[in-house]
């Protein structure tokens, strides 16, 4: 490391010693490195170096599209290609990524490593479901291609594998044809969480994109109220003649003081949001507004101040029923807890073939919490509930989950570990998150 530098994820906590090596030649800079990092949009410590191994490769300059077949939609790209480029260049031509997360500032490599999901999970699954091939630099230095037919285990362990099975160099996946670059959608006010489960379920059959904003501050009769959004690509006359022009956002120029977000401001925001979002009949929607509302504020993570924040995202199986969801909401709205005003509820479809991929059939919540003395305790108790219900958390968001909780949530962990050990027996590939949550040490020798 040439400079005393630090790295942090989107939540800006933790901040660890580390630096990135950047080059257009990703295959070269990944040699001997413990991890490759994309745009650093995972919230916690997924993209951060493990202690004592501070230099990670950065994929962001390796951003070329290597092939696009307009007949099949198959696109091959270097891992650092940002989603924002695909969105800007391909949507006006009638193509879109099969799955998008809530920000366009991610790389395709990161989309594979986190196996991101979006509003269409109930219908189309995760991004990994549409990936056909990966080119990787594995721990022993070789470059290996893997897919569902070639080195299948490596492929399954890499999709959602948080970059811990090898450096993702190139990604091949299928883009999808869209009927127009505009969306057509409607919104509906929802009074409580039970109703949410019902409207999400009902919308799933007819709408490819569904998600809800849920009030995670209000208690009592307003517990779990919110607004449900559903959309599909606009068709024929529904769409304006011109393609959507990118929305001009603004940049949050500096950290806001840590007290900016408190129970009172969160309450006021939630009240205003609820009141200003009545049930609305179907109309045309700008894709920026539906897919990437927070991208309009560059550096919105500065709202939480210097101490940073974490996002807690979990999925609770449908079989748990509304009682478990109510208990969850009671815990996050408890006095003393400050949840952010931006909470998302979504129903997930069945789990995919990525061995550490997050979604499984159930209801998912995503809630931001500032990093405070109470945050660890809150997440421990939320994890107790999630473990009890047979749910799990999303690694790309996580900072506070404990190793034993994670092991209890992940029945697939043993299989993932055994594949990972085949490809990296010496445990060279590591991250701050893997040190915290996973045991990636060298394969133990025989009995002593």
């Amino acid at each position, binding site marked *: 490391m040439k*400079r005393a530098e630090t790295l942090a994820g989107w939540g800006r906590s933790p901040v660890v010693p580390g630096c990135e090596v950047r*080059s*257009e030649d990703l295959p070269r800079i990944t040699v001997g490195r413990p991890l490759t990092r994309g745009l650093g949009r995972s919230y916690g410590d997924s993209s951060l170096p493990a202690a004592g191994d501070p230099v990670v490769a950065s994929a962001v*300059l390796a951003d070329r*599209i290597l092939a*696009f077949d307009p007949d099949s939609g198959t696109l091959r790209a270097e891992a650092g290609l940002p989603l924002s480029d695909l969105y800007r*260049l391909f949507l006006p031509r009638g193509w879109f990524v099969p799955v998008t997360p809530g920000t366009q500032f991610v790389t395709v490599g990161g989309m594979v490593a986190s196996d991101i999901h979006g509003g269409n999970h109930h219908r189309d699954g995760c991004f990994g479901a549409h990936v056909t091939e990966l080119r990787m630099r594995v721990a022993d230095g070789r470059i290996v291609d893997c897919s569902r037919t070639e080195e299948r285990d490596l492929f399954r362990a890499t999709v959602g594998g948080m970059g811990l099975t090898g450096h993702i160099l190139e990604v091949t996946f299928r883009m999808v044809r869209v009927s127009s670059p505009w969306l057509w959608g409607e919104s509906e006010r929802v009074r409580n969480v039970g109703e949410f489960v019902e409207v999400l379920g009902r919308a799933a059959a007819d709408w490819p994109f569904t998600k809800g904003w849920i009030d995670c501050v209000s208690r009592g009769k307003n517990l779990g109220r919110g607004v449900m959004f559903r959309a599909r690509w606009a068709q024929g006359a529904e769409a304006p003649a011109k393609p959507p022009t990118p929305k001009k956002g603004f940049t949050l120029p500096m950290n806001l003081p840590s007290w900016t977000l408190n129970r009172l401001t969160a309450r006021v925001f939630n009240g205003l949001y609820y009141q200003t979002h009545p049930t609305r009949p179907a109309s045309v929607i700008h894709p920026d507004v539906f897919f990437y509302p927070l991208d309009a504020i560059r550096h919105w993570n500065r709202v939480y101040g210097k101490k940073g924040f974490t996002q807690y995202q979990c999925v609770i199986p449908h079989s748990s029923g509304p009682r478990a969801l109510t208990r969850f909401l009671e815990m996050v709205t408890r006095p003393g807890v400050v949840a952010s005003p931006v909470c998302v509820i979504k129903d997930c479809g069945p789990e995919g073939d990525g061995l550490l991929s997050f979604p499984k059939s159930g209801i998912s919540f995503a809630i931001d919490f500032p990093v405070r003395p109470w945050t660890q305790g809150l997440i421990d108790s939320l994890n107790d509930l999630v473990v009890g219900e047979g749910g799990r958390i999303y690694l790309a968001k996580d900072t506070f989950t404990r190793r034993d909780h994670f092991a209890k949530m992940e029945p697939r962990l043993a299989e993932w570990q055994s594949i990972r050990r085949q490809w990296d027996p010496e445990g060279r590939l590591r991250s701050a998150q893997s040190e915290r949550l996973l045991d990636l040490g060298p394969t133990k020798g025989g009995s002593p």
Partner: protein
Amino acid sequence: MKIVVLGATKGMGRALARRLCERGDALFLLGRDPEDLSRSARDLEARAGRPAGSVGTAVCDLERPEGFAPALAAAEAGLGGLDTVVVTAGLFETQERLEADAELARRLLTVDFANTVVFCEEARRRLLARGAGTLCVFSSVAGERGRKPVVLYGAAKAGLSRYLEGLDHKFRAQGLRTICVKPGFVRTGMTEGLKTPPFAGEPDAVAARVVKAIDRGQPVVYAPGIWGLIMLVIRLLPRFVMRKIGF
């Protein structure tokens, strides 16, 4: 426009080629590594929505002047004409390394000054033979003043900037527009590992300014723009001050 770019596979050249291709210019790429050139050509085609193979490539290495004429001839043939030649390629090394390695210093001086000028001369002849054209070459703010961290690199770029200025004076009336781009510190693979100073720029912002300069035929362009002001101050500093500071 029909544009040849030497150095489009990386950094500012990559960003510039993308902007030109996305807005509809026809491109031909020159560079050292055929495999890398072909990957960049496919990237540009996919971004601009053009059929595979429509962006041509040929090998051209600034260390091998005998290849300049054939490479430009291939480009001219591939494009069916030639309006603009862009040179973003060049070598960079820190002053420390150049002082320690005489051979490296000789190579850098040859590539960044003598051979770049030889390439430009070949491009000049071809553009003038067609009656008009634009030659856009990336020099550097490092050539503005003799400075401690860039004694050798800066000297090569100073020579290049002077050459481009003279060319512009002599041939503009005949239809050759010469554009000398002087980037400040830009975050690319070339500057990787260097301490990032204030006012560092991004390749795409530089590319946006250069596209405008090509369209207008602006003879000198600082990018990002703030570096024009910074270098104005640096040029005005008395010698004894320059000797004291480390900049």
